[in-house]
């Protein structure tokens, strides 16, 4: 004869195998061990059943059942309770578990004690903290609510309807008898609210003031539409479209008013009152929530509404203040002060400045475009003006615009062309590809629909993002490309693709023709550029970037071609000039010295392509013994592919900081880079480089050329990298 545990836990499961063992271990690891756990798998396609079988086999407290076909969330929750109750009908307390949350080892000890000590309570639940997918605590204070000490049924019921947060309470510990009386989940939307509303009529809810439950938080994913899909997997009945507070009120009226289930504690008349009260309170609450949501959405989309919203709120605050007798005295004092006049003058000045800026903007933009070729205008004036401009633009509308674009892509069924990428390699690696990773994951874009367009053959960089890759050099010669790209700079005013120009559009047309695509949609780099410029120009925190990017290792580009006959172990090197490593005799000498020194220890493969594709000029380091040049194998259409293959197979990468050097961390190849002018480095890029290395668990060392002697003095005698150069690639 098996004795019944005091506490039973019903765990409805669906498709969370990856988090299930952690969740189950926390349930079975309770210090209060007099428990029975019923696992009910709703025909998950993943390994949920296998995991449950293993747990049931090794722990006699665990029972497992798998539904023959998917029942949906409501019926599975019902099954979890019913099967647990059938198995252990004597159990006093019941709780629902889940396949992804975590329970503190003392969770049950405290909840059982709370219900034992308070027979008037029907439900006990703890404080909880939200944790992310990796179990990191999220910065939100625990939610507080209970009805302890409220003995009057109507007041307790109303307070509960107004203050409840069903998601935080439904995983509490119930008296089993109460669950039996309220009938588990009914087939309505937001059924947990209904269960809690009914339970509130029978007794108090008590919150234990300790953090004992860790709720996995995947962001605000709640929606009625989503509930309809998960509750009714075999088709949505018409009543699923009835507003939830109406169906809840009707259910309460039938349960308490017609059937009289609550008698004797709740008379039929009181039952009707509870249903009526629920209808109004919950209906008003719902309307209020909808209004708040609408307001947030409106403000997110239309920045012009913000001042009106602010005025309205100030007006409301003013009305409240007027009720205060001191307000009149304060106003009188303000009237005689000069602050008002100063404020008015500053407002006029601001308006005049704005008016002048508006008038000057268009001719000024044309003037700047025509003077773009002048280095000081390109390198100093235009970035300064962009920074000034950014000061006046809040990020909210840009984020909203970007999300609208991505949502439109998500909803459409057309092919999506991402690109064409015409800017620098560095931005492509550091921002564009991580941004695409994020956009695809966040908006669940189907990779089979995506075509990536770039130049120089980096197909492997996009192989995790797109199903097809088209290279611009398949359509243009290098001379055509260079000329057209120069024209694009002139046209849009910047090398960065803040806007799509004629050249971009022409490439898109050619790609569509080549692939026979009709009505393809475009995700242009300008979406990313316009968003992230706030971060680059230090007008937004790094969170803007981390929230909209995902850094992950690049897929392997494959082995180096055999005809290159490269050594087995080699160091890849590429030096070129850029503002942080300008063309000076010292830098030329330095680069040549580095290559020479390296080549004494290891074979060095120089990656310089011998092609002039952007504004960076290659440095031709003279070759010698142990230095391999591969420029003769480089073509415009393959140079990035070949360089990727060589870097991914290298023992280390050494060269100028920026651009291609970010490939090292992506392929987990130790990377040593140089610069000579700190002022030309952008701190935002350095920060992201460091974050990239951390994410890839790799390293990229940046060294100022002037500091090289110090490093040499400090590290002279350190054992070099082991070399096993014995042969060549087959």
């Amino acid at each position, binding site marked *: 004869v098996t004795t019944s545990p005091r506490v039973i836990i019903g765990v409805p499961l669906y498709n969370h195998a990856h988090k299930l*063992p*952690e969740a*189950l*271990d*926390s349930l*079975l*690891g309770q*210090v209060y061990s007099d428990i029975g756990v019923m696992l009910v798998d709703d025909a998950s396609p993943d390994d949920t059943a296998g995991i449950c079988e293993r*747990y049931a086999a*090794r*722990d006699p407290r665990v029972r497992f059942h798998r539904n023959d076909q998917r029942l949906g969330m409501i019926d599975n929750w019902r099954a979890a309770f019913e099967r647990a109750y059938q198995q252990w009908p004597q159990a006093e307390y019941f709780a629902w578990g889940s396949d992804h949350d*975590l329970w*503190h*080892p*003392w969770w049950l000890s405290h909840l059982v004690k709370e219900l034992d000590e308070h027979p008037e309570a029907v439900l006990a639940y703890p404080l909880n*903290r939200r944790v992310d997918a990796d*179990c*990191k*605590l999220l910065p939100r204070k625990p939610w507080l609510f209970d009805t302890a000490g409220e003995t009057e049924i109507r007041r307790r019921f109303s307070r509960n309807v107004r203050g409840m947060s069903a998601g935080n309470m439904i995983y509490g510990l119930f008296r089993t008898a109460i669950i039996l009386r309220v009938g588990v989940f009914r087939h309505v939307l937001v059924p947990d609210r209904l269960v809690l509303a009914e339970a509130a009529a029978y007794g108090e809810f008590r919150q234990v003031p*300790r*953090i*004992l439950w*860790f709720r996995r938080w995947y962001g605000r994913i709640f929606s009625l539409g989503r509930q309809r899909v998960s509750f009714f997997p075999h088709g949505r009945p018409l009543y699923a479209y009835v507003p939830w507070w109406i169906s809840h009120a009707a259910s309460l009226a039938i349960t308490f008013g017609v059937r009289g289930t609550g008698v004797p504690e709740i008379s039929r008349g009181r039952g009707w009152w509870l249903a009526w009260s629920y209808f109004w309170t919950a209906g008003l609450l719902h309307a209020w929530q909808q209004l708040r949501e609408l307001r947030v959405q409106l403000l997110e989309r239309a920045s012009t509404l913000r001042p009106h919203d602010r005025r309205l709120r100030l007006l409301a605050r003013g009305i409240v203040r007027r009720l205060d007798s001191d307000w009149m005295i304060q106003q009188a004092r303000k009237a005689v002060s000069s602050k008002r006049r100063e404020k008015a003058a500053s407002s006029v000045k601001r308006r005049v400045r704005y008016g002048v800026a508006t008038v000057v903007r268009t001719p000024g933009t044309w003037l700047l475009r025509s003077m773009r070729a002048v280095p000081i205008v390109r390198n100093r004036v235009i970035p300064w003006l962009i920074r000034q401009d950014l000061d006046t633009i809040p990020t909210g509308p840009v984020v909203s615009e970007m999300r609208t674009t991505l949502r439109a892509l998500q909803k459409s069924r057309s092919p999506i062309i991402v690109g064409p990428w015409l800017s620098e390699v560095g931005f492509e690696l550091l921002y564009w590809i991580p941004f695409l990773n994020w956009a695809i994951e966040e908006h669940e874009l189907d990779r089979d629909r995506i075509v990536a367009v770039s130049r120089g053959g980096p197909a492997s960089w996009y192989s995790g993002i797109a199903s097809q890759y088209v290279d611009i050099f398949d359509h243009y010669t290098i001379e055509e490309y260079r000329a057209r790209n120069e024209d694009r700079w002139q046209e849009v005013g910047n090398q960065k693709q803040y806007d799509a120009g004629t050249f971009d559009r022409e490439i898109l047309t050619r790609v569509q023709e080549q692939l026979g695509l009709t009505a393809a949609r475009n995700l242009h780099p300008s979406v990313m550029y316009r968003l992230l410029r706030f971060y680059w120009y230090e007008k937004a925190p790094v969170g803007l970037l981390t929230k909209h990017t995902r850094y992950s290792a690049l897929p392997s580009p494959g082995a180096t071609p055999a005809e290159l006959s490269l050594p087995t172990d080699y160091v890849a090197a590429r030096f070129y000039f850029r503002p942080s490593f300008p063309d000076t005799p010292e830098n030329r000498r330095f680069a040549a010295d580095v290559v020479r020194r390296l080549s004494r220890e290891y074979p060095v493969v120089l990656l310089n392509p011998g092609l002039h594709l952007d504004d960076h000029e290659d440095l031709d380091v003279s070759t010698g013994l142990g230095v391999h040049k591969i420029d003769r194998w480089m073509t415009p259409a393959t140079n990035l592919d070949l360089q990727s293959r060589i870097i991914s197979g290298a023992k280390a990468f050494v060269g100028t900081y920026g651009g291609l050097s970010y490939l090292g961390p992506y392929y987990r190849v130790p990377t040593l880079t140089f610069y000579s002018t700190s002022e030309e480095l952008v701190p935002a890029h350095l920060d992201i480089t460091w974050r990239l290395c*951390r994410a890839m*668990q790799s390293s990229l060392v940046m060294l100022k050329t002037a500091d090289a002697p110090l490093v040499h003095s400090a590290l002279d005698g350190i054992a070099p990298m082991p070399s096993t150069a014995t042969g060549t690639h087959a």
Partner: protein
Amino acid sequence: MTADVWTAAGLRSRLESLRESAGFRAYQQVRDRVLQMVEAEAGRPPGVQTPSEYWSEELENFDYLLDASPLVVDKLRHHTYHVTGLRVYDYRSNNTATQRHFSRKLSALRKKDTAGLFVPEWPELGGFGFNIDGRLVNLDTLKFYEVLIALDHGAVLDEFRRTDERKIVWEIGAGWGGFPYQFKTICPNVTYVIADFPELFLYSGTYLTAAFPQARVRWFGDVPAERTFERWQDFDFILIPNTAAREVIRPPRLDLTINMVSFQEMTSAQVAEYAAIAHDAQCPFLYSLNRERSGYNTELEESVSQILERYYWLREIEILHVSYQKMLEDEPTPTDYRHLIGWRRQPA
């Protein structure tokens, strides 16, 4: 420092008064216990927990404490540099630049502390540190404070602070006893078990029995080994040699296992053995503040977290952007110490 100690009569008088001090009396009792324990340990065959070469050398460095004068015991904390590396010299009052760093770090930690967990350095037995707001603060003080905050953020500490039911905590290697002192101050209703090299009880045993003169202490060997945990609720501290951990620590109960900065110095087998003991004793939480591997430790074949992961689900708690031994102005590195809180896995 009192001036009269520098005269023969003054020295005699000071020694006499210190001989009667609580600290020296505690030391004398502890020394006898330690000698008994070391002798008993000498008969034990070498096993997994036998000290490494590193520790054998360290233990020899402070054998002079077996014959410490009352003056030495009165400044016991000055001699704990054998364990912590902290020296009084670095905390002179004219070292204002460093003191500013400490102040800033302390106030950063205070901002993270929502439960009032700060315990300053105990000023007796040579307690030292920068005087910040009238309290002594050194690197150990900040380290232990940070650990308490991490335990609090990880929802562990509350169980030990607000409890009617006595709880039992096991620290693997408590060093000079600084963390047990802080923990016991914050959570009085716990029995604190320390497993360590017996020689180190010269520090921790003396320090704790002097700091908590009313504490009830059970020494390994007072009763047969298998009965060491009998009526554990009646004791404040239970001190056992590290080699006896497997023998002594058994189910049904252990509530928290702690290790700071020593898993990283052990061999893989030693780390695994300690984790397995905690796991077998149903200990729900294991806290670790360690690097993944100490730079010079070649005997740790896997990283600390890889070994612990076999027994516990590990969750990292971040308190400050730098690890405990650094100041706020320093940069974090991938090899920094990590606050890890392990939740027990169910046995496979």
